[in-house]
């Protein structure tokens, strides 16, 4: 399938990018293109112009800045996977990265693209929610920040206004006391998750504090399972606690059925993963 015809522009600055996006009806942002180009090849969309933002400076890089780890929007998945800073300060991301498709895709796809696309079965949105990250949004009017937990609105729908770009993601530095676990069930390695959980907590004397459980593949957005988290908070993940966590998930999650699994199956799998994640955090 060949893509329909479109024009192409590669701005050299954010200002130029904003002008292009504002000027053209039906422009689409091209970063890594691993989702967009597949969509275009299948003629599922027909934009008039692709605005390639990979030439815009200041949108890349992985660095600790004060109390956050800042990852630029144009950072490739593979860079995150291999980054020593990520391994040290946000090991959840390092654990999640190998689940993203395959190496050839990870070499090109970007974290900004993944977050802007907002597929609920993708790895980065759930990780951002679990880590309570902040999305740094670049707009003509200036920069603004949106908490990841408020960024994902609906299926493929985010808090980005038309013409806005993600500039970076900032992850609070949690410190060495925190542990993380990323568990995903996919039919084949690299497939979109049937269900997955990004789990973070601070173990203290066998109990888990500041528990975060963010599910992927469990709704129209990544879901922070607050009821399940409350059931686990401050406790050792004993069989009784895990059972309570699993019961609570029925209220937290509204999975959407697909070819792989009905909603009830996904809820069941989410329960299984929650138990395994908590056990892993406490181990």
């Amino acid at each position: 399938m060949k893509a329909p015809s479109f024009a192409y522009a590669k701005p050299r600055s954010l200002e130029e990018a904003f002008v292009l996006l504002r000027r053209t009806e039906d422009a689409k942002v091209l970063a890594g293109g691993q989702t967009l180009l597949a969509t275009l090849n299948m003629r599922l969309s027909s934009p008039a112009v692709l605005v390639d933002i990979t030439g815009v400076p200041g949108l890349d890089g992985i660095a600790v800045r004060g109390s956050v780890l800042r990852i630029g929007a144009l950072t490739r998945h593979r860079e995150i996977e291999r980054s020593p800073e990520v391994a040290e300060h946000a090991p959840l991301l390092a654990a999640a990265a190998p689940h993203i498709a395959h190496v050839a895709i990870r070499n090109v796809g970007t974290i900004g693209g993944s977050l802007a696309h907002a597929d609920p079965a993708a790895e980065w949105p759930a990780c951002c929610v679990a880590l309570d990250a902040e999305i740094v949004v670049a707009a003509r009017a200036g920069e603004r920040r949106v908490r990841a937990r408020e960024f994902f609105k609906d299926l493929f729908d985010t808090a980005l206004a038309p013409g806005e770009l993600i500039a970076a993601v900032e992850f609070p530095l949690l410190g060495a006391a925190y542990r993380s676990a990323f568990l995903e069930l996919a039919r084949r390695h690299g497939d979109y998750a049937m269900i997955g959980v990004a789990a973070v907590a601070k173990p203290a004397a066998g109990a888990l504090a500041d528990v975060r459980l963010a599910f992927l593949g469990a709704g129209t957005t990544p879901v922070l399972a607050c009821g399940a988290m409350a059931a686990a908070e401050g406790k050792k993940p004993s069989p009784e606690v895990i059972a309570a966590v699993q019961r609570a998930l029925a209220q937290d999650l509204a999975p959407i059925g697909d070819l792989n699994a009905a909603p009830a199956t996904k809820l069941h799998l989410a329960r299984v993963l929650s138990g395994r994640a908590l056990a892993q955090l406490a181990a």
Partner: protein
Amino acid sequence: MDATIQTTITVNGAAVTRTVPARQHLIDFLRETLGLTGSHVGCEHGVCGACTIRVDGEIVRGCLMLAVQAHGRRVDTIEGMSDSGELAELQRSFHEHNALQCGFCTPGMLLAAHDLVRTKPQATRAEIREYMAGNYCRCTGYHAIVDAVEEVLALRGGKP
């Protein structure tokens, strides 16, 4: 902002300048414009891996990259990497293990295997399977491919 863009790409070491339709993906550019038909099209949705080529030293899906995005960059294909000898060990091992049958997946498979040998020189059999899991082969069932890659890793003594 144009529908066709003048683009210069270094392909297998030689700079090539063409006016390219913005919508043309890199594999179609290589195959149709340059006649380098060794890279194959299997799905055009980035899943099968038949289009795996190397851009600036990293493997990519050629069907998910526009030719214009390769402007100013270095592209290596199966033809160039064969002539340079970089793939010789893998090609010999693939040949001896019959790690190919129809050959359609083979260029992409070799590119992926080469990347594994470079980045994971001590990969276990399970890790080889995981690394190669982005390249579809219908003919071999993968066992011989894993054997061939494992043999090359062993011959190289775990060095990249």
